[in-house]
């Protein structure tokens, strides 16, 4: 075979590939499902075969190489077969993937439209209160169907003492609690109330009274922000340090987790300012809380 016929052969293959490309682009234009399937994917397989055979000379390569490549492709098929029943299907034996169902019914197509905030559950019938948005460290809260926010419960299992330490819990934040005034200034655009809902309310309670669901199981009890004595006993710097470096840093329970890696200083200041609004004794403003800790 002379040099020219070699290159002419390759150019011929290339021409076929281009034709196939054109068909695979035009085919789906007609919008028939099976036509799209055949033209787009069928032709893709043919093109891949042509490139592998003529360009990569797989046909004259030793058989062992073909077997290696076929094995890796078969393994991917095996992975697909083992995983699809759980990921592709949205329901199965005794389980429903509410998140996927919810995402299918309220899809996000355009950059503008967001999940309908605060919408009720998917049809799985949770009677729970507003569902939590995923926290992503505060900030953008996509609506999320996942499970149920634990509404402040009448029976907070109060008598269930147990000698557990206090735990801080970043539960997914509910929608913004109406009552709390948005705190201005400290960190522009940062919603301290939402941060409190997502990160603090599980232990400190949505009313800041220290008996959130997880708080109930803790000993010592989480801090109660509605109790004026709490604010007299310490200044904002100590509260800031407790939030930033965790309870152990200020001699309190190590179960109060350090939030320094999730919220920056300005955001923590905004949270501290927000906590003051729980104080029932006429809201000792941040300035007045200058007593020694």
């Amino acid at each position, binding site marked *: 075979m002379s040099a020219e016929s070699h290159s002419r052969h390759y150019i011929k293959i290339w021409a076929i590939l281009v034709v196939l490309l054109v068909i695979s682009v035009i085919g789906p234009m007609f919008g028939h499902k099976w036509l799209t399937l055949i033209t787009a994917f069928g032709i893709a397989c043919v093109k891949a075969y042509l490139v592998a055979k003529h360009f990569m000379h797989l046909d004259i390569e030793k058989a062992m190489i073909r077997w290696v490549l076929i094995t890796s492709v078969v393994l991917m098929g095996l992975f697909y077969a083992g995983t699809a029943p759980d990921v592709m299907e949205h329901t199965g034996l005794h389980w429903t993937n509410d998140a996927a169902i919810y995402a299918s019914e309220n899809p996000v197509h355009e950059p503008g439209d967001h999940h309908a905030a605060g919408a009720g559950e998917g049809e799985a019938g949770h009677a729970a209160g507003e569902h939590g948005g995923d926290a992503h460290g505060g900030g953008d809260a996509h609506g999320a169907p*996942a*499970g*149920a926010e634990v509404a402040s419960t009448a029976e907070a299992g109060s008598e269930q003492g147990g000698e557990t330490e206090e735990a801080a819990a970043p539960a997914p934040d509910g929608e913004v609690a109406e009552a709390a005034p948005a705190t201005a200034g400290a960190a522009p655009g940062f919603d301290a109330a939402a941060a409190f809902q997502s990160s603090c309310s599980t232990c400190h309670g949505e009313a800041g009274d220290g008996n959130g*669901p997880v708080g109930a199981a803790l000993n010592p009890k989480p801090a109660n922000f509605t109790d004026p004595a709490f604010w007299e006993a310490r200044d904002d710097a100590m509260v800031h340090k407790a939030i930033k470096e965790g309870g152990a840093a200020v001699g309190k329970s190590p179960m109060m987790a350090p939030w320094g890696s999730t919220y920056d200083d300005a955001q923590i200041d905004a949270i501290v300012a927000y906590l003051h609004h729980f104080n029932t004794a006429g809201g000792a403003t941040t300035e007045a809380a200058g007593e020694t800790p």
Partner: protein
Amino acid sequence: MPQLFLDQASSYAHEIDNLIWIIAAAVGFWFIVAEAVFFGFILKYRAKPGQRAAYIEGTERKYTRFISYPHMIIILFDVVLIAGSIRVWYLVKQQLPDADRTIRVIGQQWAWTFVHPGADGELDTDDDIRMVDELHVQVGDTYHFQLTSTDVLHSFSVPVFRLKQDAVPGRTITGWFQPTRTGEYDIQCAEICGIGHGIMAAKLFIESPEDHAAWIAAHNPTASLQ
């Protein structure tokens, strides 16, 4: 069959225990045989001066028999174990007897929330009783539980029921149990869920019908609006 360490407090607990004992017997037998042969060879064929090892290809029928026959029997044992395991798995996880009551179990970073159906026995009615880290059930009733999680993976694990099912955020998984012994037992979280995974303990109260009715009355939110 003798039970394992923990009491058997659910209708299928003894099934799982029996399966564990069958596996223990089958597997223990082969373990002892293998170790005995192994240590036997070591002691018997220690190097003795002037006595050389044999030259055995390992393909002669005479010797390979001693491996292939045990192997066939092991395959038989495996088939028996597979059958026993699938039977128990079907009983616990695949079939779902109709329920006297249904509860909802919500796992969240570091607390279990149990929604009991309340006096009317129906879930999602206003007389539901939401308890944190306390599950009250009546002995003898068949319960369905709808398990979900609000943030990360948790695992609803009740050792005395021999029951374990992961709570996956975004999914609702339904399972069942039927308590058979009264008492107060542990509920654990068996999937790592962050800093408070260690304190995610909850209490399981299996009560007689009278105590359970009394508990419901005591906790009925509409009745006792304190």
